[in-house]
């Protein structure tokens, strides 16, 4: 175990900005990608239902 306490863990030996800056941005970017993709898919599925009622709509 590397860390004596939570504070030590968060401080990252004085490199907190860099380490957490990297990790937080990475996690955020990856999470946002997933959220956006889920939303895109959901709208498309909802749209698929709608175009079933109006089969002649040309996009």
């Amino acid at each position, binding site marked *: 175990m*590397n860390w004596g306490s939570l504070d030590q863990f968060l401080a990252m030996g004085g*490199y907190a900005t*860099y380490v957490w800056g*990297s990790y937080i941005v990475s996690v955020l970017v990856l999470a946002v990608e997933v959220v956006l*993709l889920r939303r895109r898919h959901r709208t*498309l599925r909802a749209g*698929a*239902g709608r175009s079933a009622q109006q089969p002649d709509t040309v996009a």
Partner: protein
Amino acid sequence: MAFNWFKYSSPQTFYPLAGRLVPFFAVLAAVLGAIGLYIGFFVAPTDFQQGEAYRIIFIHVPAAWMSMFIYLVMAAWAALGLILNTRLSSMMATALAPTGALMTFLALWTGALWGKPMWGTWWAWDARMTSELILLFLYIGFMALQASIDDPRRADKAGAILALVGAVNVPIIYFSVKWWNTLHQGASISVGRSPSMASTMLLGMLVMALAYWMYSIAVTLMRVRSIILERERNTQWVRDLPGAPA
């Protein structure tokens, strides 16, 4: 092999298959990510030269690996789509590009944040970082080209040609940038891992790389599902889908 590959190369059969595969790869990515982070933060020791800052490599190196790997996979799918005229292959190429660009961005971002404490600069014109930046340009070019062509088939083929030209060029670019870097000694900093890397560090990096890999597969499959729906919206099977996802 008895497995009928061509059966799954139709968007209609692949759509539900991809839907079943996404959770599998997502769970794998999450579990591997958790293990990798545990190893990275709690098992791997502090580096005696770089202190705790080196822990950025657990996300930096996987992102950099994936950014290059995805470009190759993308070019391969694009080539397959161009040669065999299978629509699904081209859709896979299109679906991979944004994730690849994202990985490239993350590699650059984490690289900059690693570089600042280690050698006092956010950006060095080092061969690897420069190539990574050019790779980002290549991804952006691919996506911009596909986005500006309305006919999806033409977009697929044009993108495929560009991806292949890019794939031929990537090694040449890397070689030229490396050559350029060694000639300009003043600016060069050796961005290398410390020679004696603890085996737990390496293990953590490999597990994280696997997690990134699984993540990329899951996300690409999600995106390809959306692309299938967009392109096939005039077909009967898409109209027959239940309106809201389960």
